[in-house]
């Protein structure tokens, strides 16, 4: 049997988000390394044009299956569904992107398949026999090599680890029916609040963040303007949240939210190790601070040493100019 790489392709209602395309690209590379092909399991009824996107990124087969019945997402049912798909295609690898849904499904599914599970995977395996893969540990302070000892392997790919690469292949789209009846959800949803407008911090690709260097809550407009120009989410350091200048939901750090955007712009943030712990997986960190001794410069890829209140408006202008071109 051909070694299949099964990926769980989560559709967000509008499209397959970038992490899923990154996952497909990684899966294609993994399949090439191990002599297999990539199958995607997709729930719901996405547009043909969205499914073709998966084909452009190396997926040779897409199994489309109805959403499991129930009032809302049920971890048990989805785990059974994906496990059933993995068994049906004899998958050696079952791959997930790093998001809340994956964390809900992958571990349960791994138990069902008696498969070794590694999350936070940071690249292709070092070797396939024994199967060894690298992941970050201690919230980014170190790395580890994990060995999976089972024939079937479940991996969650870390954010910002693999670029989306187009590898167009012929893509077959099939209906999939799980071999087992899915467990019926046993809970009630009594209220639903749709998130509108504001970009969810965890999923934002660009984040603009403010620290004590902003001096006061009243000064946040310059950050809001920059975030608006960039289409970015807002975040802040712990002291800012503790002072009440910004809501706690914006607090990013080891004891707040841990995020992994493409671009993180730290304004007036000194770079205490606990803050770094929340942002170290960002693809690019930019620091703007007037203190040349600030530790953040050791972690930033680009930096400006200057007065925030001069630099930020100028930066906003430059971004707007770029976007209009």
């Amino acid at each position, binding site marked *: 049997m051909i070694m299949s790489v099964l990926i769980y392709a989560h559709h*967000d*209602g509008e499209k397959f988000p970038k992490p899923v395309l990154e996952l497909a690209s990684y899966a294609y590379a993994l399949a090439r390394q191990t002599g297999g092909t990539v199958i995607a399991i997709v729930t719901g009824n996405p547009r043909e044009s969205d499914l073709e996107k998966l084909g452009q990124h190396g997926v040779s087969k897409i199994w489309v299956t109805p959403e499991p019945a129930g009032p*809302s*997402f049920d*971890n*048990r049912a989805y*785990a059974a569904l994906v496990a059933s798909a993995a068994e049906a295609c004899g998958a050696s690898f079952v791959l997930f992107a790093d998001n*809340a849904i994956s*964390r*809900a499904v992958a*571990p*349960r599914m*791994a*138990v069902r398949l008696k498969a*070794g*599970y590694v*999350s936070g995977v940071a690249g292709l395996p070092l070797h396939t026999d024994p199967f060894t893969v*690298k992941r970050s*540990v*201690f*919230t980014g*302070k*170190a*790395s*580890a*090599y994990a*060995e999976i*000892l089972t024939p079937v392997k479940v991996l969650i790919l870390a954010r910002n680890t693999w670029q989306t690469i187009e590898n167009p292949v012929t893509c077959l789209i099939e209906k999939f029916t799980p071999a087992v009846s899915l467990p019926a959800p*046993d*809970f*009630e*949803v*009594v*209220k*639903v*609040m*749709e*998130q509108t407008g504001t970009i*969810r911090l965890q999923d934002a*690709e*660009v984040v603009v963040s403010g620290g004590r260097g902003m001096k006061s809550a009243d000064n946040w407009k310059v950050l809001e303007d920059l975030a608006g120009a960039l289409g970015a989410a807002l975040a802040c350091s712990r002291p800012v949240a503790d002072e009440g200048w910004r809501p706690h939901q914006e607090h990013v750090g*080891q*004891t*707040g*939210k841990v995020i992994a955007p493409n*671009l993180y712009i730290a304004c007036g943030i000194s770079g205490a190790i606990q803050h770094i*712990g929340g942002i170290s997986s960002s693809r690019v960190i930019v620091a703007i601070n007037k203190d040349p001794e600030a530790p953040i410069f050791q972690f*930033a*890829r*680009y*930096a*400006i*040493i200057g*007065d925030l209140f001069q*630099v930020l408006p100028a*930066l906003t202008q*430059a*971004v707007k*100019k*770029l976007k209009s071109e």
Partner: protein
Amino acid sequence: MKILVCISVVPDTTTHIRFTDKMDALDTNGIQWIINPWDELALTRALEIREHPGSGVTQISVIHIGMKDTEPVIQKALAVGADSAYRVNHAPADSLEAASQIAEVVRKEPFDLVITGHDSADYNGSAVGEMLAELLGWASFSSISSLSVVDSVITLERESDIRSETIIAKAPCVVTIQKGIAKDPRIPSLRGIMTARSKQLTLVEPVKCAPLTHFVRFENPAPRSQCRMVDPSHVEELVNLLRNEANVL
């Protein structure tokens, strides 16, 4: 209703992480051990729930899979208000081992609600809660930002990409919480500290269980490349770099 909170013991978040010479294990010399921050918040929430009259909660226990040297940290959970604790005498190699040991204990005791933290600050597996639920055949809920129990009825708020839902869950179930579930961890009262030792800490021998994964080697982070400084009077240069060099704009 009986609540079990799963706690992991991790190095203090300010610790400089070092490995042994062979780079195959954590160098534990001089490490200050603490309750994993997420788990501490989970315990705090459980205590808050119980403090409300009419919750129906009759017992809050904690469980940890670890060796004897973790007992002082477990004592802290008792000092802040947990009624009893279990320590399974084993150092798990992966999340599945930990979940399997917890499952054994839960099968023997009638817990109604098991709470775990999203992640542990050491190996960042984010799997124990869901694996435990699968092993027990229980329902599970993750990304929970709010949890309450009134008259033994469990109400949760679950956050996803696009919405937040209020759910009424049936016991027994496993709930994996994220930060925001409680504001600050508790400082134990002095009486709590003095009486922690009189609370029950049950030592449980582990069941035989083979890990399906393990860590073979560790590595310190690669040295960072130099930071590229941009002149504050030419911020457009930064924008160009971000677009053309870094490809993030």
